[in-house]
């Protein structure tokens, strides 16, 4: 019964979305306040109905309702409760429902918190947002209905893909979707502004918080996915340039570009049409990402439940929204003339450089991801484009970006001098050179990657610190440091985070150590200064799997550090083995142990990795997200949001 109610709520939400797509748009065109105001309750209703449908599906998973086809295919009564809940979106239909739920959530948020927006713009934004929801409601109802019943329900389900039975599933997709779909707000604002024919500083200020929020979620989502791959896939890789990873990375790059160009719109009323274009493209790439995952055109580890027919539907959605928006853009963009005047060397031009590098690097990733398909279709060559290509073609952009960032971030608006910016960064540069030389001396004879990455990382991070310090005035004043706007802190923290991540990736790649061996029980062996002993191997039964668990004693200089328990699991229902690495997480390095097979002579294969600075990769990502959050909480957004309600009285001077 709940499933039918959920199904019904979903259809109702679809109908509400259709109305919300049409009525406010006409209202805004004719300036009819009643028709425009209709968008707000509709957005709320849409969100509540979709939320109800999602809850109904989750209830079916929690209670293991095996009369639902989706539950049978993706769940099992013995599965732990956490995975029953997160299993709701661990499959195609459920994840699309989560997707559309988030579309309606953002629409509702715009309705609730958009009090400061002009009524016509608000009506148009909500109508465009609703159009996106309509497309995905139709997609779910007509091709991927999660509420289909089975005439003859089986006694039990077929279980969830074991790789997905991990706490990672509870958090990675929701964050990623919040990011993907959050970009739909930027898209809606861009299209609404094109219809409106007006883009000004205020528009830049309205669109920036949404983009920031989407970017924060995307950053966390990607970092979580990368960390999940690190501990789950069994050899400690953290980024594979897999098509689906690229699908999330491309919108991230464009969202980062959009964040920066929206600043120029907000502060200087320039780069308007470019910012609009970026907003359209960023969401376009989110849709391309969905298309890549769902169509199965590009093979990847994420290919659960994909099928070509659905791919065609999503391709249609993609073509309609990006095609339509770009046509509108072509017709209207020239109306957005720039106002600000600035020199060749200025903060504006530095941000243009930032945008060029981010957008072109996104293009490179896109080209590489699509190339195997293009080559097969047009040149009759079946080939692969893997990590070595992306490492070679993408990394240079990040190197230039890292080199330019500290200088660009201290250039003044309008007109600056490169020499002065460089001089203000002398301490950052000196520190970076010193650390690099130290590293170089310590690791003679090994690849240059480590020192180069260390240089960039230290340069970017210390550059961000110098930038923050220079904001406190000529003399430097500690008290003033804490009274700086949150946006300044956000900038410094996010940029430092980027530096930390660059440093960590280079360090991990350059200084990782690996050991593969057959070891006898109780026989110690040495890896990179650590002593490891496989004490015993047990066979245990988990809730829905059988495990072979090793017990490895980790020692350094005769002092016990940890007992690691690497595991191999076998899921009998899903008929799939997985490896669960055991990791001793420390600040400076991880020790990563994987248990292999039993050998004929009684020994066991054990794989050990020493991974320096591994945690720093994700710590850097979290810093970037935190920086974004600090920026988001900046006073000017809060004030702008409530501006209409409190026109007088003002804000006390701080």
């Amino acid at each position, binding site marked *: 019964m709940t499933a039918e109610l959920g199904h019904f709520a979903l259809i109702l939400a679809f109908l509400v979305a259709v109305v919300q797509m049409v009525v406010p748009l006409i209202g805004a065109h004719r300036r009819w306040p009643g028709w425009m105001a209709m968008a707000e309750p509709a957005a709320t209703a849409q969100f509540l109905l979709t939320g109800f449908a999602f809850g109904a599906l989750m209830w079916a998973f929690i209670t293991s309702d095996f009369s639902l086809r989706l539950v049978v295919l993706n769940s099992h009564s013995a599965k732990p409760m956490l995975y029953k809940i997160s299993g709701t979106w661990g499959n195609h239909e459920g994840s699309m429902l989560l997707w559309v739920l988030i579309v309606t959530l953002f629409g509702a948020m715009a309705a609730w918190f958009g009090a400061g927006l002009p009524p016509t713009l608000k009506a148009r934004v909500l109508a465009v947002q609703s159009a996106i929801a309509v497309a995905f409601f139709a997609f779910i109802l007509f091709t991927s209905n999660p509420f289909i019943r089975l005439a003859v329900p089986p006694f039990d389900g077929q279980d969830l893909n074991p790789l997905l039975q991990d706490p990672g599933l509870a958090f990675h997709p929701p964050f990623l979707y919040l990011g993907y779909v959050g970009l739909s707000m930027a898209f809606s604002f861009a299209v609404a502004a094109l219809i409106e024919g007006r883009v000004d500083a205020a528009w830049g200020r309205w669109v920036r918080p949404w983009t920031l929020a989407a970017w924060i979620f995307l950053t966390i989502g990607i970092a979580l996915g990368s960390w999940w791959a690190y501990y789950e896939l069994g050899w400690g890789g953290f980024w594979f340039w897999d098509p689906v990873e690229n699908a999330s990375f491309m919108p991230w790059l464009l969202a980062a570009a959009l964040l920066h160009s929206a600043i120029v719109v907000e502060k200087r009323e320039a780069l308007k049409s470019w910012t609009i274009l970026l907003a359209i493209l960023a969401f376009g790439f989110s849709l391309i990402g969905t298309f890549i995952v769902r169509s199965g055109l590009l093979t990847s580890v994420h290919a659960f439940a994909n099928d070509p027919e659905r791919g065609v539907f999503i391709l249609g959605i993609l073509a309609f929204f990006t095609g339509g928006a770009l046509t509108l853009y072509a017709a209207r963009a020239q109306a957005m003339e720039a106002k600000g005047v600035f*020199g060749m060397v200025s903060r504006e031009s530095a941000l243009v450089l930032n945008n060029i590098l981010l957008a072109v690097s996104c293009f490179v990733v896109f*080209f590489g991801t699509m190339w195997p398909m293009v080559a097969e279709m047009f040149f009759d060559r079946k080939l692969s484009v893997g990590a070595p290509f992306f490492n070679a073609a993408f990394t240079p952009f990040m190197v230039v970006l890292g080199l330019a960032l500290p200088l660009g971030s201290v250039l003044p608006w309008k007109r600056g001098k490169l020499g002065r910016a460089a001089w203000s960064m002398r301490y950052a540069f000196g520190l970076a050179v010193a650390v690099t030389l130290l590293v170089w001396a310590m690791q003679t004879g090994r690849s240059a990657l480590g020192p180069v990455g260390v240089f960039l990382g230290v340069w970017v991070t210390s550059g961000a610190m110098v930038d923050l310090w220079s904001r406190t005035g000529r003399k430097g004043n500690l008290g003033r440091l804490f009274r700086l706007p949150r946006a300044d802190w956000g900038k410094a923290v996010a940029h430092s985070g980027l530096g930390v991540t660059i440093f960590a990736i280079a360090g991990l790649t350059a200084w990782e150590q690996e050991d593969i061996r057959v070891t006898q029980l109780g026989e110690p062996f040495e890896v990179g200064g650590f002593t490891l002993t496989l004490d015993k191997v047990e066979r245990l039964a988990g809730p829905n799997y059988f495990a072979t668990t090793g017990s490895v004693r980790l020692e350094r200089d005769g002092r016990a550090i940890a007992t690691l328990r690497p595991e191999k699991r076998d899921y009998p229902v899903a008929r799939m083995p997985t490896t669960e690495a055991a990791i001793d997480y420390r600040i400076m390095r991880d020790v990563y142990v994987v248990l292999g*097979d039993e050998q004929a002579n009684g020994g066991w294969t054990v794989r050990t990795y020493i991974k320096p600075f591994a945690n720093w990769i994700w710590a850097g990502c979290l810093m970037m997200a935190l920086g974004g959050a600090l920026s988001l909480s900046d006073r000017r957004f809060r004030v702008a949001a409530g501006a209409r309600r409190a026109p007088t009285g003002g804000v006390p001077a701080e």
Partner: protein
Amino acid sequence: MTGLLKRFMAVLMLVLLALPVAAVQPDEVLDDPLLEERARDLSKGLRCLVCRNESIDESNAGLARDLRLLVRERLVAGDSDDEVIAFVVDRYGEYVLLRPTSDGANMLLWAAGPIMLLLAALTGFFYLRKRASAPAPTEAALTEEERQRLRELLDE
């Protein structure tokens, strides 16, 4: 050579028995560390044909293991890195290369980034030059509607 043959037979037995295997196995590792390092580097650039976007160095599949052994066999036989790659590509096609070649149509793939960067840099340069020489906008450029509204406000 017999040692290798023996090892190869042992591997064959393993494959026939269809035991689950995982990435590089201790018994695959070559005694000569230099050769082994070259083998690892080569393996990282070769695709596991039955996997999704994994190199044979990372893959757990039986076929990947066969390819790893093949690479090592060629190296022990004295092939250069390029000869090993050519040998593998000959048998399995260029699909095994994770780093695409730069011949024929693939030139487009490798050149796309630099060309795009050049175009973007030129566009950016001309935009900036235009902005630098643009006349400063007159701040008081109000529309007729805004002027009307301003008058109303001032009259109040």
